Each structure stands twice: as structure tokens, then as C-alpha cells.
């Protein structure tokens, strides 16, 4: 339901001819696509299609053997995850990666680490100015907490939260970094209908209010077709579709991949 007047900008990230393999297993073969500013791009495909591998390449967990990724006009060679984070790429994980011993608020505060000016070494020695800084960041985190409606669980250790709320905290932590590009790996997996609707609303709101570019992986086709501006389809590590939801829905290759081909 992307409104036609939505202001989609220039290319933010361009993936060109990416190939990735683990030993003899080819995870991705010659993938190219682009993500434009302020759009919501969904990557879909059957299990094992290479969707998560693709996200892992973008934020630097994996280093593809071939191909280039151009981010904000800058072609990058090998990038490590913390460098990607520094450049404004935040993400969530398929199997929730939260700091389980910490409270919701502390988790979200870790998302602000990069925004804090005092360095890792200096703040280890002297914490005066760092403390003042903490207060500012706390305010920002509180705004995100309001935004995602998780006020009630602020102080609860996240290990105790139900799955749906953990996913929301993970999103909150990613948002705390004020990302330019937000990568969401199955943000709605394992959720009930109501939780899914909430999550959809949050994703659309983030995109709308902060102008954050979002690239997400999702299996729920209803959700994908509803919220994304464009859809990239992967199957066995190859790209078999790329276009607006309606185009993709009617593409024969995509239907074959999902329903199987009759021989």
C-alpha cells in the first residue's frame, strides 16, 4: 500500500554481482540489486535461498568472494560489522540477538554506543563527562521506548520477555543508532496476528517519520505485499525477480519457485 506520492530518492546501496560460497556450497550467485533512499525493500524467497546471507554481506558479517557493494556512492572492499554500524547500517536478527542479562533500557542504550563521543579507552579511565552524556542518550532512548510502546518493560531483563516483545526491543536497539539503512531479518517470524500488525505499523512509521531506508526479509506474503515498495526474490542463491509487489506476484519464475514446477 505504498502511497504513490511517496518520495523515493537516489540509490543508497548498490549490490553488484555478489557471489558468496562456503567451501563448495554456493550461497549467493551473481546477485545485483539496489536499495533506494527511503524505500522499503523486501527480500523474499524459499528457505535456504540466501536471504540472510545477503543481509550478512551488506552489514559485513560475510565477505563475498566476488562482486562489490556500493554504499552512499562509496564502493567498499571488505567491511567489518562494526564499521558498517558506524556508517549507519543497523540490523535485527532472525534468531533475536539481544543482551539477555541486561534490561530493555540497557539494551537500547547499547544502540547509542556509537553516538557517544567519549572513546572506549578514555571512558574506561575517566567517567565524568561520559556520565553527562549518558543522560542525553537516555532521553533519546526514552523517545524510542514511547514510539514502540514498550514503556512497561523498561527495566525488565530481556531474557524474561515473551518472543514478540523481544523482537520489538531488538528493533528499538537498532533504531537507537539512528540508522540510515535498517536491515530486518524476519521481523515478524513467530508472531501472532496482532503482534504482526503492530510490527507492520512500526516499520511503516519508522520509514515514514524518520525517513529510514528499510531492507527486510519476511516470509509472510501478505505482509510483504502490503508494506514494501519493491520486492527482490531469491531462489537457490540466484535472483529470480525484482520489482513492485504486483509485478513480482504475477511473475512466472516466482510462482514456480514457491509452488514448484510440474515436470
Amino acid at each position: 500500500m505504498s502511497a504513490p506520492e511517496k518520495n523515493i530518492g537516489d540509490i543508497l546501496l548498490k549490490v553488484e554481482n555478489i557471489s558468496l560460497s562456503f567451501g563448495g556450497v554456493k550461497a549467493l550467485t551473481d546477485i545485483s540489486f539496489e536499495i533506494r533512499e527511503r524505500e522499503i525493500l523486501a527480500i523474499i524467497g524459499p528457505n535456504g535461498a540466501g536471504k540472510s546471507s545477503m543481509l550478512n554481506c551488506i552489514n559485513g558479517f560475510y565477505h563475498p568472494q566476488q562482486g562489490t557493494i556500493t554504499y552512499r556512492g562509496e564502493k567498499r572492499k571488505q567491511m567489518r560489522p562494526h564499521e558498517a554500524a558506524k556508517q549507519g547500517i543497523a540490523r535485527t536478527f532472525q534468531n533475536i540477538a539481544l543482551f539477555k542479562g541486561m534490561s530493555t533500557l540497557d539494551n537500547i542504550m547499547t544502540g547509542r554506543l556509537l553516538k557517544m563521543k567519549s572513546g572506549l579507552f578514555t571512558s574506561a579511565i575517566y567517567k565524568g563527562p561520559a556520565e553527562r552524556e549518558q543522560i542525553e542518550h537516555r532521553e533519546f532512548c526514552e523517545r524510542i521506548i514511547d514510539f514502540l510502546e514498550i514503556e512497561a518493560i523498561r527495566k525488565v531483563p530481556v531474557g524474561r520477555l515473551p518472543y514478540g516483545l523481544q523482537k520489538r526491543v531488538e528493533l528499538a536497539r537498532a533504531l537507537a543508532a539512528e540508522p540510515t539503512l535498517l536491515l530486518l531479518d524476519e521481523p515478524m517470524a513467530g508472531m501472532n496476528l496482532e503482534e504482526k500488525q503492530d510490527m507492520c505499523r512500526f516499520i511503516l512509521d519508522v520509514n515514514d517519520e524518520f525517513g529510514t531506508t528499510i531492507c527486510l526479509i519476511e516470509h509472510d506474503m501478505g505482509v510483504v505485499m502490503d508494506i514494501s515498495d519493491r520486492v527482490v526474490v531469491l531462489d537457490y542463491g540466484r535472483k529470480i525477480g525484482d520489482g513492485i509487489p504486483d509485478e513480482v506476484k504475477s511473475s512466472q519464475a516466482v510462482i514456480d519457485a514457491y509452488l514448484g514446477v510440474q515436470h
Partner: protein
Amino acid sequence: MAFFFEVLIGGLMAGVMYSLVALGFVLIFKASGVFNFAQGAMVLFAGLFFVGFTELGVPTWLSLLLTVGVMVLLAVAVERLVLRHLVNQEGIILFMATIGVSFFLDGFGQTIWGSNVKQLDIGIPTDPIFLMDGEILIQSFDLWAALVAGTLLASLVVFQKTRTGRALRAVADDHQAAQSVGIPLNVIWIIVWAIAGLVALVAGVMWGSKLGMQPAIVSLALKALPVLILGGFTSIPGAIIGGLIIGAGEKLAEVYIGPLVGGGIENWFAYVLALAFLLIRPQGLFGEKLIERV
């Protein structure tokens, strides 16, 4: 009664020495979820370098500084050569790696500096102090050890509250997530191992002054294990409290229960205490209790 207090105080002071070793374990465990088997070897390694430098005629303060340098270099080397290649691996694999590091340090230190017992005297007074009209005797060395441990504890607790401390906790909880919020794993690991190296140096100097610098110090690491089980693997104050309880407990047990069972309790009492704790409170006195959803 005075005798009881003398035993108690003597035990607490011995416990402080265990705590010094245990602190190093806690630091690395907190920051990477790994039980660093090499901590005991690091204590010997640091101690050997320090003694070695002083024996070459280097002044004490400079030897200390040089050894700090060696431990930082060691931290960098461990990160480069071992940990970097094991990012996102299971804890058990990292644990195995630390066993390897332990053997290496044990051998390497002795290859350079020899394996005979070395005297270490950095001028810590060892004369006894008498309290309560001479009824209670305390070694002044033990008081110094307590002072050193206290200072170490205070600075580490403050360190935990800083931004770096938060980053360390994050890394301990989840490598992937920590990287994705922009924490450079390798820098964190170097910081942690360097700090654990400094703690090992302090422990090495104190133990070396007490017993002489000798390879047997490595096996002291084993005494840190019950201390950690008692105090909790993730708690810095826990390492101190655990050490005190173990130290006092084993001395008191030796003196008061020992005669009933024919003595020799001191050697195994700590482990029995730890075993009992594992049954009652597996996370230790101050450890984090993680709730697993199933």
C-alpha cells in the same frame, strides 16, 4: 577466642590471595563468556618476566612498567593469533583455545627465564603485627595484599560502570549483536585481555613475594575455581567475597574440624564447599541468573 580470630584473619588474608587470581578469570568470563584456562599461566608468565627483569638489574618500577608492556603485547597477540579466528564460535571452542594458550605461556615463560624457584622481594614488609596485647598475630604482608586487592576491586568496579564496561557486557552476552551495534570485537578483546594480564601481574607479584616465583603457581589457578563457583563467574565483588569465604573456611575447617577426621582438610575443603554451592545456588552468590526460555 583470640585464637579463633587469629585463624579467621589468617584465613581471610589467604583468601585475598585467591581472589587476586580469581579476578582475572571473572574479567575475561564477563567479557567473552569464556573460562580462561590460561589465567594461572598468565600469573606465572607475568611474574617470571617481572622477576627476570629485576634480576637483570632493572629498577623495580621500570621492571613493572616493562612487564605491563609485555602483558599488553600478549593481549594483542592472543587476539590476533587466536581469538580473531574464533569469532562467533561456541564457548567451548574458545575454552579449548585458552588451554592451548595456557600450555604455551607456561612453556615459553620458563624457556626464557628458567624453571627454578626465584626469590622475589619488592620491599613489602613481612614482619608480624600483634593486636590485642599480643594475642592476635597478623602478617603485615597479608595486610598489604588486602590493600592491593581492595584497590584493584575499586578500580575494576568503577571501570564496569563506564561506557567501555557496558560494551564489555554486551560482548559477553552476544557477539553478533555487539558487532551490529558497532562494538569492535577485537578492540574489546585486547582491552579485556590486557586488563586480565595486569591483574595477573599483580597476582604474580604478590604470590611470588609470598612463595617465591615458581611453576607451581600455575596450579593455583585451580584454587580460583571454587572461589568463582562461590562468588559467581560474572561478579567482580563475588571474586573477592568468594576468595575470603574459601580462605577463611578452609583455615577454620582445618583447625576446628581437622583434628576430628585426622587433618588434611585444607586441601579439599574448598572443593567440597564449591560442590555444595553448585547444588544450592549454581550461579554463585553474586552471579547473574540467566533465565532460559524453552
